[in-house]
């Protein structure tokens, strides 16, 4: 039988606020345990939550970024369950009326585009951390993280492969960083995904029973976990077994998923509106205020790059795949003032390759956009050839200075003096009689060989167009 996998994601995005969602305690990462756990965070009796304006604005930003409906009146609810890192005995979340409604995100998988529908996104507070170290058989609790604002973003079960799920997660990851609501740091848990996976016979329109893979904080693990889970579910069904709804964890060491707890007593969170919090009302003016401060969205920027700079769709998409790359490109284009396509080629080529090789972010690129533009100017005005430019770039990368000083110091200036090039061509022709004979016998390829020899003789500095022309004339004569 042919099987189809059906995937939906729930992503917890930690919002980039200075303080917690319901109190003025700091959210800075890495503080000493419980030093950022105030009376509200540790749930002392009598405390009251007061909603953080910035968290609400982050939610509006996200809604605008995915073209979603904004819940003009949303309600906070208590989700009741017991766990020591949740000292109130409930998590404040949103249930029936979330702040962000239906929206969509378009992903690219291979050459195909696909739209993933987002069901909703709601504001909620994070829990603390349980540490299962050596505490005389006890568990240690750090409540610094308790109350950190999260936006939980839920999709429809629209994805049909691990590749699509990862493409969606990556796109979402870039988008939340792009609009400045999340630092995107996956190691620190700022962006965590729960993935719902089920399988069904291909062609069926009924959903299979799903299992939820919890807390994936790397795209690679996500891919592996979904692939393993899909295989496991198909094998189980083909062996005549049934799938039971469960929460599973992915073990990176074994590459397997395993059930965390069976839901024999299905979670009953007994949601109800939190009487400590009033309904959140978002006005048109609130939305307009956020809109005014929104950066240009990647999709709009991509379209603009195609129209304004004449970039091919592929280039425009690649360059707008991250805010850092787009900013770099725009800065370099502005400084260069020449053909934007040349800038795009270098940003996607040498710059991206080097960054990738060294595992660096573009913001930390040793060659600044200004420096890159300086190099491209010298290509554009024929001071150096594209080939020599690669060497200059490599020198810039290791900190040898700006393009102009490197070209000067290393004597890389292109030779465009036709007299000097003629001398080189004559020497090459004299030394390569065999090739000349081949060319004259009709072997076109021999010409390229001769050009190569000339370039080599000039140490790559001869203007290639002039070499071509002079060589052609001499051979014809």
């Amino acid at each position, binding site marked *: 039988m042919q099987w189809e996998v059906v995937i939906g994601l729930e992503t917890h995005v930690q919002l980039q606020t200075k*303080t917690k969602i319901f109190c*003025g305690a700091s959210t800075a990462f890495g503080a000493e345990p419980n030093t950022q756990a105030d009376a509200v965070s540790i749930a002392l009796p009598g405390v009251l939550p007061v909603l953080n304006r910035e968290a609400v604005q982050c939610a509006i930003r996200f809604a605008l970024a995915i073209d979603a409906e904004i819940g003009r009146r949303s309600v906070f609810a208590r989700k*009741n369950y017991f766990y020591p890192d949740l000292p109130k005995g409930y998590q404040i979340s949103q249930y029936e009326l979330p702040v962000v409604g239906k929206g969509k995100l378009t992903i690219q998988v291979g050459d195909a585009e696909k739209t993933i529908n987002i069901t909703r996104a709601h504001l909620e507070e994070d829990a603390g951390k349980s540490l299962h170290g050596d505490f005389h058989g006890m568990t240690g609790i750090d409540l610094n993280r308790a109350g950190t604002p999260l936006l939980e973003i839920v999709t429809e079960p629209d994805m049909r492969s691990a590749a699509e799920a990862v493409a969606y997660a990556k796109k979402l990851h870039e988008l939340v960083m792009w609009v400045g609501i999340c630092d995107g740091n996956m190691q620190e848990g700022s962006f965590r995904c729960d993935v719902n996976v089920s399988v069904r016979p291909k062609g069926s329109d009924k959903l299979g029973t799903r299992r939820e893979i919890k807390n994936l904080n790397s795209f690679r693990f996500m891919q592996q976990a979904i692939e393993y889970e899909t295989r496991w579910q198909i094998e189980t069904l083909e062996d005549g077994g049934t799938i039971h709804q469960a929460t599973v964890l992915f073990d990176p060491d074994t590459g397997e998923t395993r059930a965390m707890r069976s839901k024999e007593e299905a979670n009953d969170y007994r949601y109800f509106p939190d009487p400590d919090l009033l309904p959140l009302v978002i006005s048109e003016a609130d939305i307009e205020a956020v809109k005014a401060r929104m950066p240009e969205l990647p999709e709009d920027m991509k379209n603009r790059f195609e129209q304004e700079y004449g970039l091919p769709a592929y280039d425009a998409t690649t360059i707008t795949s991250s805010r850092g790359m787009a900013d770099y490109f725009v800065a370099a284009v502005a400084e260069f003032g020449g053909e934007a396509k040349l800038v795009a080629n270098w940003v996607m080529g040498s710059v991206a390759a080097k960054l990738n090789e060294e595992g660096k972010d573009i913001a930390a690129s040793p060659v600044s956009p200004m420096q890159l533009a300086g190099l491209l100017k010298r290509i554009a005005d024929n001071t150096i050839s594209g080939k020599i430019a690669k060497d200059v770039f490599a020198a810039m990368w290791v900190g040898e200075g700006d393009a102009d000083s490197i070209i000067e110091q290393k004597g890389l200036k292109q030779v465009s003096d036709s007299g000097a090039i003629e001398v080189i061509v004559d020497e090459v022709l004299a030394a390569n009689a065999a090739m000349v004979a081949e060319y004259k016998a009709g072997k076109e390829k021999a010409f390229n060989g001769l050009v190569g020899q000339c370039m080599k003789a000039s140490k790559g500095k001869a203007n290639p167009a002039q070499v071509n022309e002079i060589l052609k004339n001499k051979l014809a004569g």
Partner: protein
Amino acid sequence: MSLTTDDVKRIAHLARIEVTEDEAQATLTKLSGILGLIEQMQAVDTTGIEPMSHSQDVTQRLREDAVTETNQRELFQSIAPAVENGLYLVPKVIE
């Protein structure tokens, strides 16, 4: 809708409240009384009335995103049953 003592015990378990058979029985009577009241209220025609999620018809005020709390860990932990290295210690939790 009628409640059974099993429902009461389940609700008590979800809230981690220990109840004896007698207490379950007594709670059953009280909870059924409350459900009776709700049933009565549900009989009222509310067509066209927007539901409220809070008893007061006011909206949430927002707080500026500025740190106002200082570290008071020593004070808070002075009433905790067990602490170590700044952590609150609780009976072992097993996943």
